[in-house]
C-alpha cells in the first residue's frame, strides 16, 4: 500500500460556514473567532456533512449540555476526523465513558494535584531559563520553535522519567496524531505504533529496575480488585499523557506570548504588577483556549432545543464556548485582570483535563521567566506567525524581536 492510499482528498474550501463548516479550513486555522461569531448567530448547534457528519455547539450553554451528557455523547472518539476506523488504541480515561471512566481517572489524579505541581515547579523554572540562555543574546527568536514547544516536552518527560532529549520524537508523533491524522490514517497509525513501542521498552526496563517516576506509579497502581493494570492500559494512559500534555500547553504559552507581543499595555502591566499573573493566566486561557475535543452521538437527543442524530460526531469547541458573549462580558476582548471567569478551557464535567494544574503551572512559570528576562518584545514584521490546524490551536512559528520598538 502506498503512503498516500489512506489520505483523503483535500477538503474543498468552505463558502457556507453555517451549513458546511470545517475546522481544518485555512481560514479557520488563521482566525476562527469571526467564524464562531457567525455560527453562534445562526444557531446554538450547527452541522456539516464533512467528517461523515458532525455537529458543533456554538454557545457556552450548548457545549456544557453536551459535556455533561455522557448518556447520549460518548468520548470513545475524541478527535473529529475524515474517517472513523474501528477503535484500537484507547487512551483511558479521556476515551472512557462511565462507569469505566472514574476508576481510570482516579489513578491519574494524585500525581497532578497543585501540591504535586509545586514540587515540579523549580525544574520548570530552570528549564525556561536554560532555553532563554540559548537565544537571548541573538535579540530575536522563533519563540514557538525555541521556547514554548520545549517547556511542556521537558516537563512531562521529567515527570514520566524519560529522557528530556527524546522530545523531538514526541513532537513528531503528536503532529502525526493530532494534525496529519485528521486526514491521513497511516500517519496516525505510524505515530501510535512508534509511541507504543517507545513506552513498551520503558515498561520492560522498569519491570527489571523499578523507579519512582510516573511510569512506575502507573505500573504499581492496582484496580479495585487489587489487580495490576494490563500493560495495554498503562500504555494507553502514557500515550494520553504525552499527547495531551505537550502541544496543548505549547499552544497556550505560545498564544499568551503572541498576545503580549502585540499588546504592550498588557505586557507592561504584567511586568509592573506580577501579582496579576493568576488572573492573567486564566484570561489568556479563556481567550485563546487551545483545546477542542470531540464526542460521538450515541442516541438521538436535543441540545439547546436543536435535534442531534446518532452516527454524527460533535466538535466540542471549548474555545468557542469561551468567546460566547452570553457568558462573558467583552467576550471578544482580553481583559487581563478579569475577575469573574468560569472559562471552560480545561473542559466541563467528568472529563476535566487531568493535567490542568500542570498546564497552569507551566504557563505561569514560562510567562514569568520570559517577562523577567525579556520584558520588551514584539512580533518580527519580517517573519510570519503560523497556527496549528485542527484539534489544538496555537502558534507553530512565532518570530519575535527583543527590546523596545524603535
Amino acid at each position, binding site marked *: 500500500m502506498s503512503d498516500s492510499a489512506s489520505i483523503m482528498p483535500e477538503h474543498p474550501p468552505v463558502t457556507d460556514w453555517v451549513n458546511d463548516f470545517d475546522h481544518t479550513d485555512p481560514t479557520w486555522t488563521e482566525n476562527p473567532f469571526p467564524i464562531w461569531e457567525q455560527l453562534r448567530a445562526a444557531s446554538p448547534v450547527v452541522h456539516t456533512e464533512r467528517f461523515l457528519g458532525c455537529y458543533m455547539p456554538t454557545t457556552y450553554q450548548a457545549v456544557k449540555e453536551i459535556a455533561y451528557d455522557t448518556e447520549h455523547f460518548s468520548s470513545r472518539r475524541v478527535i473529529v476526523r475524515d474517517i472513523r476506523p474501528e477503535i484500537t488504541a484507547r487512551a483511558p480515561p479521556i476515551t472512557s465513558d462511565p462507569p469505566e471512566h472514574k476508576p481510570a481517572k*482516579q489513578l491519574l*489524579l*494524585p500525581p*497532578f*494535584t*497543585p*501540591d504535586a505541581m509545586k514540587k515540579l515547579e523549580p525544574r520548570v523554572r530552570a528549564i525556561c531559563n536554560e532555553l532563554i540562555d540559548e537565544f537571548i543574546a541573538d535579540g530575536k527568536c522563533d519563540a514557538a520553535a525555541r521556547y514554548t514547544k520545549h517547556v511542556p516536552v521537558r516537563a512531562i518527560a521529567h515527570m514520566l522519567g524519560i529522557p528530556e532529549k527524546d522530545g523531538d520524537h514526541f513532537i513528531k508523533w503528536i503532529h502525526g496524531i493530532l494534525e496529519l491524522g485528521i486526514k491521513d490514517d497511516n500517519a496516525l497509525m505510524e505515530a501510535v505504533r512508534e509511541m507504543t513501542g517507545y513506552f513498551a521498552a520503558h515498561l520492560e526496563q522498569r519491570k527489571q529496575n523499578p523507579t519512582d517516576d510516573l511510569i512506575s506509579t502507573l505500573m504499581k497502581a492496582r484496580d479495585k480488585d487489587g489487580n495490576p493494570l494490563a500493560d495495554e492500559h498503562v500504555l494507553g494512559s502514557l500515550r494520553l499523557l504525552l499527547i495531551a500534555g505537550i502541544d496543548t500547553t505549547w499552544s497556550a504559552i505560545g498564544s499568551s506570548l503572541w498576545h503580549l507581543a502585540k499588546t504592550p499595555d498588557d505586557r507592561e502591566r504584567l511586568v509592573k504588577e506580577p501579582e496579576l499573573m*493568576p488572573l492573567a493566566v*486564566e484570561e489568556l486561557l479563556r481567550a485563546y483556549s487551545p483545546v477542542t475535543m470531540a464526542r460521538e452521538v450515541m442516541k438521538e437527543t436535543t441540545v439547546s432545543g436543536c435535534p442531534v442524530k446518532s452516527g454524527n460526531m460533535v466538535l466540542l469547541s471549548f474555545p468557542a464556548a469561551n468567546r460566547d458573549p452570553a457568558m462573558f462580558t467583552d467576550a471578544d476582548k482580553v481583559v487581563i485582570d478579569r*475577575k*469573574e*471567569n*468560569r*472559562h*471552560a478551557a*480545561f473542559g*466541563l*464535567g*467528568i472529563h*476535566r483535563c487531568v493535567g*490542568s*494544574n500542570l498546564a497552569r503551572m507551566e504557563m505561569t512559570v514560562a510567562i514569568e521567566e520570559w517577562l523577567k528576562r525579556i520584558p520588551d518584545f514584539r512580533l518580527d514584521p519580517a517573519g510570519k506567525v503560523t497556527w496549528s490546524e485542527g484539534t489544538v490551536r496555537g502558534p507553530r512559528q512565532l518570530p519575535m524581536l527583543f527590546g523596545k520598538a524603535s
Partner: protein
Amino acid sequence: MAGKLKIRVDQDKCQGHARCKSLAPELFDLDEFGNAHEVGDGSVPEHLEDKAWLAQSNCPEIAIDVTEE
C-alpha cells in the same frame, strides 16, 4: 471575626478545577485527587467574604454554594 456567610462545595459537581483553592486558599482545601471541600464547617470570616464570592464566581462547574445566615 465570624461573618454571616457560609460556603459549601457540592461533591457531586466538583471536578477538581481547583480554582477555589487558588483564589481562596484559606477557605478551601483539596483531597488527594485534587477535589475541593470547604475548610472546617464552611463559616467565612468577615475579612474573607470577598474571596468567598470570588471563588464562587470562578468555579466552572458552579459547585460552590454561598449562603447568607
